[in-house]
């Protein structure tokens, strides 16, 4: 999360107001340029600048000062205050300001907002939502609108605005803590949300970080020495040690591991338990066992196998193949499986997914999707890739996330068994569209293919079968290779 220092300019000076009251200002410096330079020196990654005179009068007053700051520092500026015409927006955007902050026009001139959005794009406009007693304030907080928070969310969504700054005006400049709930509403609606108003301690800053804010604007607390910029940045630096997973997949038929191309031409690849144990020792992060015959007869044998696997193997494993009832899942979980992969049944009856999640929890429900490219998208196939549906893979994946699926396993029928590499385009799209872990599957033929999928898409795990079974690639070698190439991997 970014910690963003605020510079408010009134009559050419750097000031802070309390609750937006122009009569209640404290001057911190007569030279905002020096203040900006100082923040840059302290490590600020960008600056939030408000032309208070402009906000009050409805057109930029201190823009020359803003341009002077733009010339003096080399960090991006986000500037607001009185930007209520196309020309004033354009002037800023063409003279060194990275992003303009608008507020009043979102309420009073939504057409202008749409126009700016069209011409300059999402990345250069942020809307400041200033809330006063539950209503959105305008005109430098002097004006009031009848719009509520949910009204403004609807407006911004309609226009396509992605980034907002949220302030509870009652909290601003008082150093008594911010309004977390207000900010949370915007974060939960998917906005890139910057929080402002009343931030007065490091724990306030940390709290916004935990809520998932994109940034936090700090004014008075920084000028009064209550928050140190560098300390705050250190506290909220993004830290993540979660590793990418390598998952061998074992297709099981009649108690043996088999593998074929395009779901046919099956070849024997060994004993599932022996193979599973070996993969464990070599550093596999998880295992998948698929019952590819999945007849009633086979299901009993498979259940017994799962029971044995659970006793022998101490890393997580997923089982799947023909799962279509709560009873199926119960049996396999009781036998010791950690996760259950649901395929065709999820496509045919999405209520089954809801029901399974309700029963067993998201964490053990994996949805396995067989996708095949068609025109501009990917269609879902069922029954082991033999039957086409008219369902779009991306839409289906999003729906599964909504229904509570814990993870997605993406197979590509175009790539399965070909060893031509993962379908990067498909995986890029899917991993961008959902916010649950995604496992890449189908097409792995070399260590480079694994590196490609982790470097080019946002998937969390990659699955391989024959490439491991026939020892073309050793899991340990693969993991060392990925780690050497800076993919976070458990080695």
């Amino acid at each position, binding site marked *: 999360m970014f910690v963003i220092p605020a510079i408010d300019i009134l009559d050419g000076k750097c000031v802070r107001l309390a609750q937006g009251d122009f009569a209640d200002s404290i001057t911190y410096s007569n030279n905002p340029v020096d203040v900006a330079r100082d923040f840059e020196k302290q490590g600020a990654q960008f600056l939030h600048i408000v032309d208070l005179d402009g906000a009050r009068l409805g057109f930029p007053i201190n823009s020359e000062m803003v341009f002077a700051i733009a010339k003096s520092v080399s960090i991006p500026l986000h500037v607001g205050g009185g930007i209520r015409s196309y020309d004033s927006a354009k002037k800023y955007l063409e003279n060194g300001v990275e992003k303009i902050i608008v507020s009043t026009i979102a309420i009073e001139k939504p057409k202008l907002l749409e126009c700016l959005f069209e011409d300059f794009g999402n990345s250069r406009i942020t809307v400041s939502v200033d809330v006063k007693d539950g209503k959105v304030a305008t005109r430098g907080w002097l004006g009031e609108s009848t719009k509520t928070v949910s009204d403004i969310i609807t407006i911004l969504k309609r226009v396509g605005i992605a980034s907002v700054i949220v302030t509870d005006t009652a909290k601003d400049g008082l150093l008594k*803590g911010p309004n977390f709930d207000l900010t949370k509403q915007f974060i939960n609606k998917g906005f890139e949300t910057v929080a402002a108003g009343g931030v007065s301690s490091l*724990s306030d800053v940390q709290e916004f970080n935990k809520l998932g804010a994109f940034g936090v604007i700090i004014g008075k607390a920084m000028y009064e020495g209550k928050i140190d910029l560098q300390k705050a940045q250190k506290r909220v630096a993004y830290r993540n040690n*979660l590793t990418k*997973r390598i998952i061998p997949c074992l297709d099981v038929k009649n108690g043996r591991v088999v593998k074929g191309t395009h779901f046919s031409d099956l070849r024997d690849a060994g004993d599932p338990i022996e193979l599973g144990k070996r993969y464990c020792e070599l550093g596999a992060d998880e295992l998948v066992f698929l019952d590819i015959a999945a007849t009633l007869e086979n299901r009993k044998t498979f259940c017994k196998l799962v029971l044995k696997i*659970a*006793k022998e193997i101490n890393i997580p494993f997923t089982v799947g193949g023909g799962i279509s009832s709560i009873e199926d899942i119960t049996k396999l979980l009781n036998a*010791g499986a950690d996760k259950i992969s649901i395929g065709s049944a999820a496509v045919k009856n999405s209520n089954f997914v809801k029901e399974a999640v309700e029963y067993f*929890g998201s964490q053990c429900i994996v949805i396995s999707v067989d996708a095949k490219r068609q025109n501009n998208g990917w269609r879902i196939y069922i029954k082991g890739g033999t039957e086409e549906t008219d369902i779009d893979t991306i839409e289906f994946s999003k729906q599964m996330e909504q229904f509570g699926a814990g993870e997605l396993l993406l197979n590509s029928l175009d790539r399965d068994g070909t060893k031509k590499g993962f379908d990067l385009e498909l995986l890029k799209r899917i991993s961008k569209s959902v916010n649950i*872990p995604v496992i890449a599957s189908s097409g792995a033929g070399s260590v480079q293919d694994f590196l490609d999928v982790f470097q080019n898409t946002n998937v969390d795990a990659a699955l391989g079968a024959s490439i491991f079974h026939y020892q073309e690639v050793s899991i340990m070698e693969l993991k060392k290779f990925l780690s050497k190439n800076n993919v976070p991997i458990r080695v």
Partner: protein
Amino acid sequence: MIAIIDYKAGNIASVKNALERLGRACVVTSDLKKILSADGVIFPGQGRAGAAMPNLRKTGIDKVIPKITKPFLGICLGMQLLGSYSEEDQTKCLGIFQGACRKFPPTLKTPHLGWNKVELTQESPLIAGIPDGSYFYFVHSYYVDPVRSKKPLVSAALNKERTSNGVDALEAHIVGKTSYGFDFPSIMQKDNFFAVQFHPEKSGAQGLRLLNNFCELCL
């Protein structure tokens, strides 16, 4: 004999399997007497806090857990239920640890799933012989939050305790932490109560070592 508490919350077989691999005698039970008389108790769990707590109350296990004086290990949901409150289904929990359980923000992929590092922050017999920075397997959408919030996520009593001690009461119980967007506690200890957010029974050799350490404490 180690008792594994069965309260109809998830994969209990794997904890039992792991103890059997270690050659430790264990029993899966919801019998209050057996739980109280065991040499040690493991409290596993997956699923929802809002579903688990009523089960614990119905069986009376909620009253028994605070009375246990033998080594006790909460795993995953079992750790979260030891806190005072969970955001999940707004559930009041057991209150062994004074901490609140919160959901990861929508900006992070949820569940937090896979192998992540545990950085050890203080000594505990539970982690004897386990190197700092070892990897363990996690699957969870909620985490125990040690930082005070403006909202009454934590009890007033705790805030008072914090102010009077000058230290964060919960922070003092953190033995290990893990980074997912930010740091959260992944191993905790308060007296005989241990808790881990990851699944030691699914975390390969280091997981088994941790479970073995726990079993040693139960002798």
